[in-house]
């Protein structure tokens, strides 16, 4: 059952309704085309050869035998790509990516830095021939000791991945970089070490009546999108390149590929195919530059695809972490101090989400005295990619578990304790930034009022847990163009790939402004030559920023429609009003034109009308979520069953409530998988031993109950309809909520993820040992 708690209600015609998505029929009939569905005349098939070693120097690559295989048309190695500098001094402040590292990740240069790191690629007339050819490429490696854990990586005498890695102390430079040539500092694996501080923690701990300190570990997990990566490229003789791929941003793919193959962005057109899930993992290039390089060499179109094992070993995942949290609170239930250290594995190249993880950890609370120290550490594992609310789930697992323990020791109900400390409008985050109006307090109240929270829970080994989470939400530049058709419909071209229903939510914002039906807006996602720059569908930002662009484009149409009506009526635009899709002459109400009527007369009265929106809006507003979960633990097997699950989220205003619920449910279930089963399992050579869906176990329908949703609607002042990004935050609270429920059920505090049967049994046994000792 889904419920909505509204704080204020504005009347809308379209916003808040549930029209059928425009791309729905194509998707339920198999006609929608995803990245691997492209077929072209003369298409070659590309495959990538990947390093069998987690850490090795590449001494030589001999591709001659592969090239001799009939059917093989091209082979590429790092020699076929541009070499952008990876130096810190060449990065701009606030840079999102280090292109030198990205080039190296796409195709290994001097060293292979993880098992699965791309080292060469082949294009052939069939996928099977391409696969055979990979086996004929002869690479000589000097195998080096792999650095696989944070512990080892952070030691002074650890083997280093990058001899010239700069060790930064700057949370503004997440992608990290290489040292300048004249810098002779020590070699290290610590790419960034930063501290956020506020107040006086020493004083704060003195004032505490209870102090809890614990350490937590979380394993790497993969985004797990069902569609593997695929990219198809054509490189024409005039130097123009076309790429078909599915990604979270066609412009990011274009710009990154341009840098990596060494051409201006104007030479590349990226055509966005439908995307089969991304969750953050499809925001950076892997195959696009490879397909382009193979297309150039072979002179034919090339489609490069990944196998599921390639996806696990070569893309994603999110960081493994080690987090220590010490928290003090007084008898009145106020948190007096927090001291935390967070170390995140970034994989082979810097840029883990240690920074957002550290920033989000305490952001839902008013904590006067806090110190949060973060480390970004390179290890011989795939380069970490964004995954839904990057960084926040791990830090919330730690902090929300400790809050549960502190509240329990002080005798407070977990929701009450959070209410006593919860953040409101104006609360300062640890980086000094003040929060805008958020709905955290309303969310806590909604949790308390929910029947699930007070429902009886009987039976042995059953327990209930609660936890919350915070995510900053993102925004960025976005563009949209909308054109009025003669039948009164509007064709909308926007720049945000539709990852889970945002296309319909954008069309609805146009319809709302124009007073027409959602079905009368026809949304399409433009390629990079058809619409203005739009940043990634990421950071929960697409429906917000592209929504703003659509809102602007619709207002642009509205203004021109008013002018046109004025022209027809020989009046001035001020004499015309526009309400609910009807234009009326203010002083002569007999003069009326519906949107549809006027649309039919545009060509004859001055020409077609299009509206545009080009924005980079602020005011996206952070998001909070919470969940209530009931579990049953089998003390003999360690298996945890989810009996009941309610997810609550501070959503601003739902544009399309069904897809908001969908984001909440999907995020919650990814969180459940992360909590209970999912992890990268490595052997001591740094080989992932569970790189298939059989062994990397994501939740199935059978593992879950229905996921109840509560949408808490506190309008976001930063958006005309009060909406805010909803895509990510629901993944944050399930891990601590389930850990808290397990504690409630069997009295065992889980401090590492996943809470798989084996880990639960070990925790039970070690608690029994301690009890005996």
């Amino acid at each position, binding site marked *: 059952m889904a419920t909505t708690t509204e704080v204020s209600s504005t009347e809308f015609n379209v916003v808040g309704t*549930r029209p*059928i*998505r425009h*791309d*729905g*029929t194509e*998707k*339920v*009939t*198999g*006609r*929608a*085309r*995803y990245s*691997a*569905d492209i*077929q072209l005349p003369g298409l070659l098939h590309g495959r990538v050869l990947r390093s069998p070693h987690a850490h090795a120097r590449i001494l030589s690559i001999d591709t001659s035998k592969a090239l001799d295989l009939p059917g093989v048309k091209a082979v590429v190695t790092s020699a076929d790509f541009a070499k952008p500098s990876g130096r810190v001094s060449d990065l701009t402040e606030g840079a999102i990516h280090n292109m030198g590292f990205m080039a190296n990740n796409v195709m290994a240069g001097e060293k292979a830095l993880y098992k699965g790191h791309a080292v060469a690629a082949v294009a052939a007339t*069939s*996928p*099977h021939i391409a696969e055979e050819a990979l086996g004929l490429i002869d690479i000589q490696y000097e195998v080096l000791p792999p650095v696989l854990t944070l512990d080892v990586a952070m030691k002074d005498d650890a083997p280093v991945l990058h001899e010239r890695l700069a060790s930064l102390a700057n949370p503004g430079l997440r992608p990290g970089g290489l040292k300048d040539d004249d810098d002779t500092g020590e070699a290290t694996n610590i790419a960034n070490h930063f501290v956020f501080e506020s107040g006086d923690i020493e004083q704060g701990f003195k004032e505490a009546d209870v102090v809890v300190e614990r350490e937590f570990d979380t394993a790497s997990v993969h*985004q*797990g*999108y*069902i*569609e*593997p990566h695929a990219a198809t490229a054509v490189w024409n003789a005039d130097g123009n390149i076309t790429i078909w791929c599915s990604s979270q941003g066609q412009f990011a793919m274009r710009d990154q590929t341009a840098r990596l193959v060494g051409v201006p962005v104007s030479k590349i057109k990226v055509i966005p195919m*439908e*995307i*089969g*899930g*991304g*969750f953050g993992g499809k925001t950076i290039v892997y195959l696009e530059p490879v397909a382009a390089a193979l297309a150039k060499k072979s002179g034919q179109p090339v489609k490069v695809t990944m*196998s*599921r094992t390639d996806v696990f070993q070569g893309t994603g995942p999110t960081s493994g972490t080690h987090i220590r949290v010490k928290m003090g609170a007084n008898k009145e239930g106020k948190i007096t101090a927090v001291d935390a250290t967070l170390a995140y594995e970034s994989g082979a190249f810097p840029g883990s989400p240690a920074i957002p993880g550290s920033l989000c950890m305490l952001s839902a609370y008013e904590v006067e005295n806090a110190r949060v120290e973060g480390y970004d550490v390179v290890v011989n594992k795939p380069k970490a990619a964004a995954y839904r609310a990057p960084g926040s789930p791990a830090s919330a697992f730690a902090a929300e578990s400790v809050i549960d323990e502190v509240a329990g020791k002080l005798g407070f109900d977990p929701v009450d304790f959070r209410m006593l400390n919860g953040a409101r409008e104006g609360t300062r985050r640890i980086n000094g930034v003040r929060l805008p109006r958020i709905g955290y307090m309303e969310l806590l109240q909604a949790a308390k009022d929910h029947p699930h929270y007070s429902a009886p829970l009987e039976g042995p080994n059953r327990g209930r847990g609660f936890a919350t989470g915070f995510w900053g939400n993102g925004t960025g530049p976005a563009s949209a163009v909308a054109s009025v058709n003669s039948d009164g419909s509007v064709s909308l071209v926007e720049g945000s790939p539709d*990852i*889970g*229903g945002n296309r319909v939510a954008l069309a609805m914002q146009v319809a709302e402004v124009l007073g027409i039906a959602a079905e009368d807006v026809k949304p399409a996602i433009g390629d990079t030559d058809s619409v203005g720059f739009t940043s990634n569908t990421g950071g929960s930002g697409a429906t917000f920023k592209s929504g703003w662009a659509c809102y602007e484009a619709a207002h642009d149409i509205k203004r021109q429609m008013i002018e046109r009506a004025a022209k027809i009526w020989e009046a001035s635009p001020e004499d015309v009003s526009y309400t609910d899709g009807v234009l009326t002459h203010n002083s002569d109400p007999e003069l009326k034109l519906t949107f549809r009527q006027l649309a039919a007369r545009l060509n004859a009265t001055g020409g077609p009308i299009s509206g545009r929106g080009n924005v980079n809006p602020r005011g996206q507003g952070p998001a909070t979520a919470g969940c209530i979960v009931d579990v049953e633990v089998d003390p003999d097997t360690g298996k945890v069953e989810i009996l009941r699950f309610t997810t609550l989220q501070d959503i601003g205003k739902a544009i*399309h409530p*069904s*897809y908001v*619920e*969908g*984001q909440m*449910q*999907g*995020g*919650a*279930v*990814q969180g459940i998988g992360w909590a209970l089963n999912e992890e990268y399992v490595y052997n001591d050579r740094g080989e992932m031993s569970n790189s*298939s*869906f*059989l062994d990397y176990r*994501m*939740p*199935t*329908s*059978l593992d*879950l109950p*229905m*996921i109840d949703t509560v949408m808490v609607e506190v309008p976001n002042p930063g958006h005309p309809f009060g909406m805010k990004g909803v895509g990510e935050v629901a993944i944050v609270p399930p891990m601590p909520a389930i850990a808290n429920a397990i504690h409630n059920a069997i009295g065992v505090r889980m401090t590492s993820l996943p809470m798989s049967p084996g880990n639960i049994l070990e925790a039970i046994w070690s608690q029994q040992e301690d009890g005996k000792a």
Partner: protein
Amino acid sequence: MAKKAHIETTINGEQVEYLCEPRQSLLEVLRDVLEMTGTKEGCNDGNCGACTVVMDGRIVNSCLVLGAEAEGANLETIEGVATPDSLHPLQQSFLQNAALQCGICTPGFILASKALLEMEPDPGEERVRHWLAGNLCRCTGYDKIVKAVLEAADVLEVKG
């Protein structure tokens, strides 16, 4: 390279002939040879259900069937579920219930659910969850998919 085999089969009621290499899977044949890309690949090793098709009345993962094994078979794929002028009640129900987000898993879920409802017109939630456990969806958390299948069962019963 081994010689290609000439295969005759029936797909969505139509007689189809194709040539395939002995090593090509039915999934590859559908997608690459016949250009019927509605059937999706998620894993190519039988663990995600994105490639689900119906073969002689049974659901199979087409990535685990060889193209050559389809000789004389009767196949049903996502392309054959709707009629030219109307969607199948399951497809309609998936749309109405917002049971897809990215949609890559949807063809597989629809074929698997259709097979279930043809055998058991009135399954309960548990049965639906059990039946669909071989189909992975990473986006929805399954809630809306299960509801869509249960609702389609009701619609089909009224119609039937």
